[in-house]
């Protein structure tokens, strides 16, 4: 029978996929941000557990970064942005939630079918982590594609990045420097997007990215 350490890693990585689906299911911006914070917490847990079983101490730093930035700072900042902008608090979807979830299911199946044969030589834990990480990445992309509101697109982007971190820790390869720089680049991206949001809002009085198409003259 598989060991407890494997079981817990499985639980945390599977939980990450589950939380990605919860992100897709939300229809309010604030709860979306809360679920995103939850995802970061689960990610931190998964990374810390990997650090524990791999004996790789630098991964604890990664976990701490995830916890500090993504679970606290970023959601807080986005909360502020939503509040300041006074945007519509509902998530505006392009495709309805049901079909989006179904598509997400298909993406998970796709990443499983794709990753398991590719990584046949690795140890079970890494294989599973990679399969789940690819699912999280694809689900983040799906979220960016199917949401109208720039704030939820940002959340999709961040959750995509969470998938990358999971993949990196599972593959035992990522040096700390890279992880820190990735974390900072994400933070900078957040700042840029934040500024960008305010600018869109000033010009178009909405954060619906469809308004941008209009300014480019793509819509009549």
């Amino acid at each position, binding site marked *: 029978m598989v060991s407890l350490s494997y079981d817990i890693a499985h639980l945390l990585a599977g939980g990450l996929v589950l939380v990605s689906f919860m992100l897709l299911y939300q229809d309010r911006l604030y709860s979306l941000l809360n679920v995103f914070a939850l995802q970061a917490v689960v990610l931190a847990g998964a990374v810390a557990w990997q650090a524990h079983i791999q004996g790789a101490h630098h991964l604890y730093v990664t976990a701490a970064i995830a916890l500090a930035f993504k679970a606290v700072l970023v959601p807080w900042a986005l909360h502020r942005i939503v509040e300041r902008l006074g945007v519509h608090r509902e998530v505006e979807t392009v495709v309805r939630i049901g079909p989006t979830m179904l598509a997400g*299911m298909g993406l998970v199946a796709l990443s499983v*079918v794709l990753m398991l*044969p590719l990584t046949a030589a690795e140890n079970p834990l890494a294989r599973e982590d990679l399969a789940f990480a690819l699912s999280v990445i694809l689900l983040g992309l799906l979220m960016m594609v199917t949401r109208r509101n720039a704030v939820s697109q940002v959340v999709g982007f961040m959750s995509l990045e969470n998938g990358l971190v999971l993949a990196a820790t599972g593959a035992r390869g990522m040096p700390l420097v890279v992880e820190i720089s990735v974390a900072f680049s994400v933070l900078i991206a957040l700042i840029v997007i934040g500024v960008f949001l305010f600018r869109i809002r000033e010009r178009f009085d909405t954060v619906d990215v469809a308004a941008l198409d209009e300014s480019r003259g793509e819509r009549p």
Partner: protein
Amino acid sequence: MTALDAALLLSGGLLALGPAALPLARRPGGPALLHGAAATLSAALALLGLWALVAPGAPVQAVLPLGLPWLGAHFRLDALAAFFILVLGAGGTAASLYGIGYGRHLEAPGRVLPFYGPFLGAMALVLFADDAFTFLLSWESMSLLSWALVLADHRNPEARSASYVYLLMAGIGTMALLFAFGLLAGPGGGYAFAAIAAAERGPGVTAAILFLMLAGAGSKAGVFPLHVWLPLAHPAAPSHVSALMSGVMTKIALYGFIRVGFDLLGPVAWWASPVVIVLGSTTAVMGILLANVDRDAKRILAYSTIENVGVIFAALGLALAFRANGMTALAALALTAALFHILNHMLFKSLLFMAAGAVLAATGRRTLDALGGLIHRMPATAFLALVGVTAIAALPPLNGFASEWLLFQGILQSPGLPQPALQLLLPGAGGMLALAAALAAACFVRFYGIIFLGRPRSEAAAGAVEVDRWSLAAMAGLALLCLFGGILPGAVLDTLAPAVGLATGGRIPPQLGNSWATLVPVTAGQSSYSGLLVLAFITFGAMTSAWLVHRLASHRLRRGPAWDCGFPLTDGRSQYSAGGFSQPIRRALGGTLVAAREHVVMPPPGDMRPARHAAESGDVAWMRLYLPAAAAVGGLATRLNTLQFLTIRRYLGLVFVSLILLLVGLTQWN
């Protein structure tokens, strides 16, 4: 005389009913006589099929000097054919018995009866055929005769357009079959089934044949998106013919698929099976969704036939997947589920079409919104229809549940399959089938509730009277068989084991030895179900509780007006309508799948016009696939119209260009 000779004689007798009907149909008592003869011959066929299934023996073959001179007509009776003969015979008997009574309501018996017997006979010949030529000839006769039956009410423009669409689709289906048998026979041209079964083929050709059969047999059975003719044609025919078309003819089509896919074709690569599974489960969900939003009683039943055909195809796909991996016992389980469901669907769908026919005969109406309250006017029909809807909604302890349960047990075994794609696909397919089953329950609550329960919605429904005894007897027989299949499924499964063995080479554990008629598809530790005990417990529980309550608590009863939260409206139209009933499902699932739209016209305040609400929905396949295709063909034809007004020189030029093109093609060929 062998069993096959007897069977062929009986089929010949059914064919001979056609010419006999020409003088007899218009005489008083003629229709009853013809239907009675058809019932007798069909019953004999059914018994013969049963006997051939139960009595062990080698398949019998015969060659008659008919048809192509160098080929002759090969016939054969083996276990698989015997099972379908049983289905055909039982369905034909019930429909013909029903016809004895229902025939009095036929407007033009002369347009029905000459085709009725031969239709049954042609279906039987499809089952006995042992070479491609006989098979296709019988198949085509079956199509044409049923086409004539659809056109029986030829003054009705709806029936005319239905028969036109049917003829087109049958043509497309037969073309696919022609290609399939062409590939099967190969360059050597061995058209006898024995030669076809012995031939060697590559996996690509095998899969191509399977898909062609899926298109050819599937279009006759009603596989999405080739189903569009079925909801038009099946309801247009007289009700006992509708019962035959939905209950039996779709099964003959399935026989064609099983005969080729399992018996003649040899091993099929595993990657062909997901196509069948996906197509089957999609068909099931789409069919039952369309049934849920339709408002015509017989069309609802036709759409539900599509659903059941989808369920059967999903089971066949599962059997193909297991067989491709050498898991014969599990392939046998899936195929057993498919064959059991084939039998069950024949029983309850015939029963329900007959009930719909009885309602039609009593009220003259088919739209749900004109019916209601018939449980008071037609108590026997209502009771028998209740058995039918319980069975078709896959509820225990009736037969529909037993076969769907068996199918789910097969799906639960899918983790044993080695291919990850199949492993991931099958739970999803199982979910879709469960959705289809639950939607079927919703659909038939609506069907039964609006037709039989509540209060009449029209004068015609208020004045209905019970139908004749022949019709009731036919329905009662089918209802009894539904109950039998539900509580003693083991007996049915053991009977059809030889047919399953012939197609898959495996079998499920024998069921008759189990205590309390329990079904144990794999092992007792994994799953078991006893319809007999479930029925016994429910009956016992209901009876004792009713007795105790009446005895110990109270049995007083007073009739009063309905309460309805204090606003009982007397008009029958204040009840929920068919469109209203399906609204939650239409809103939840119908947006894209059945193109459901709602229009509300709300006049501004002060305007005295009434507010109006209209809901519409339709078949997406028809709207997105067929109408554009038809428009494209129409447009192309208009363009080509200019070709009719050319000069002689240009005509000659056309001929010349095509000649050159053909010659160039010939150089490439060699």
